[in-house]
């Protein structure tokens, strides 16, 4: 057994697996190389030997085999755990997306109302003791303090200046817009996958 320049291409050539240009290259080489011609002949002989030497193969009566397999089948196919989880997640996706969006809207609305109220009427912050000068401990009161400080900063330019408040809280609508875009994208992606599934199912049922 020898290994030559185009040796690795001879098997694929014999199997008809080479591109036309490569096959032509191999043919040109074979015309000039007796060693590769001999090797090609060996590969061809080997294929014949494998087929001839394989005998008639194992003959199993079809109906007996089918009956034996059917007899040993569990009652239903077992869905892999990851598939079950994926399916459940897919089914729940639109509700999760809508629920998340509604929750985010509620949070933004409530926080927007509170902060605007603090910004426009600073006395409220003083009255409930959440003035920026005396922030409480813990993240909820720190966050509130931050919001109040921002609101007061806006109010400093004129407590009733709506434009000042908007300028200070300009990021709120931006965040809202980004959130809306994200939710829309997620929802449309889900709808697209739902539609693809529906088409696949229709194709399967329709082809019967």
């Amino acid at each position: 057994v020898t290994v030559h320049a185009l040796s690795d291409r001879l098997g694929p050539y014999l199997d008809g697996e080479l591109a036309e240009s490569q096959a032509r290259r191999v043919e040109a080489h074979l015309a000039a190389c007796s060693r590769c011609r001999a090797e090609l002949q060996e590969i061809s002989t080997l294929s014949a030997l494998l087929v001839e030497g394989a005998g008639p193969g194992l003959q199993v009566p079809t109906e007996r085999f089918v009956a034996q397999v059917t007899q040993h089948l569990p009652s239903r196919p077992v869905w892999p755990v990851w598939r079950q989880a994926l399916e459940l997640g897919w089914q729940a996706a639109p509700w999760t997306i809508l629920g998340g969006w509604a929750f985010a809207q509620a949070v933004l609305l409530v926080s927007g109302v509170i902060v605007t109220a603090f910004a426009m009427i600073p006395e409220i912050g003083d009255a409930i003791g959440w003035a920026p000068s005396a922030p409480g401990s813990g993240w909820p009161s720190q966050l509130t303090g931050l919001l109040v400080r921002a609101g007061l900063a806006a109010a400093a330019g004129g407590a009733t200046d709506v434009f000042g408040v908007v300028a200070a809280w300009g990021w709120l609508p931006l965040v809202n817009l980004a959130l809306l875009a994200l939710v829309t994208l997620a929802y449309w992606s889900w709808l697209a996958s739902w539609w693809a599934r529906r088409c696949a199912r229709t194709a399967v049922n329709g082809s019967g």
Partner: protein
Amino acid sequence: MSGKPTGDELVLIADAQQGDKGAFSELVRRHHRGVISVVYRMCGDADLAEDAAQEAFIRAWQHLPGYRPRSPFRNWLYRIAMNAAYDALRREHETVDPETVVLVSPEADPAAAMEQREREERVRQALRAMPPASREVIVLREYEGLSYREIADTLDIPVGTVMSRLNYARRWLRQALIETMEDL
């Protein structure tokens, strides 16, 4: 035969995925010869092969909901059959009794029959002695006639790897069967 499942096979697969044993039986009826052939060439033993083929179909039934018809159903079955064959070989480990092997073609001439039996035995032993990765590509190519792309899909390896494994397998077999080849 080489493409993705279409038409009634898709319907059978969809029904079987929902637990329809009748639909699955029809799929077994359609593909059992190929699966038995693959495991038989891999195992080299009739009893072992039949058990492994049954095991392959039972595994296919269990994992059927995970099958997506992006690739041919036959290739998916062959992948399972290969694994079932390996498991059967591991379990039985050298239990081949040459007397039980159903490889002999009916020959009128006893001398020719003897020669053929001897040739088949050499081929069978050479196949069994091959490295498993080489054996599976040779079986799929030479006995099942799969294209390189289909072998790659079945074994989940790149086409380039199929090519190199086939080259190696053929060199290996030529060396192992050199005397037998000279007799031809």
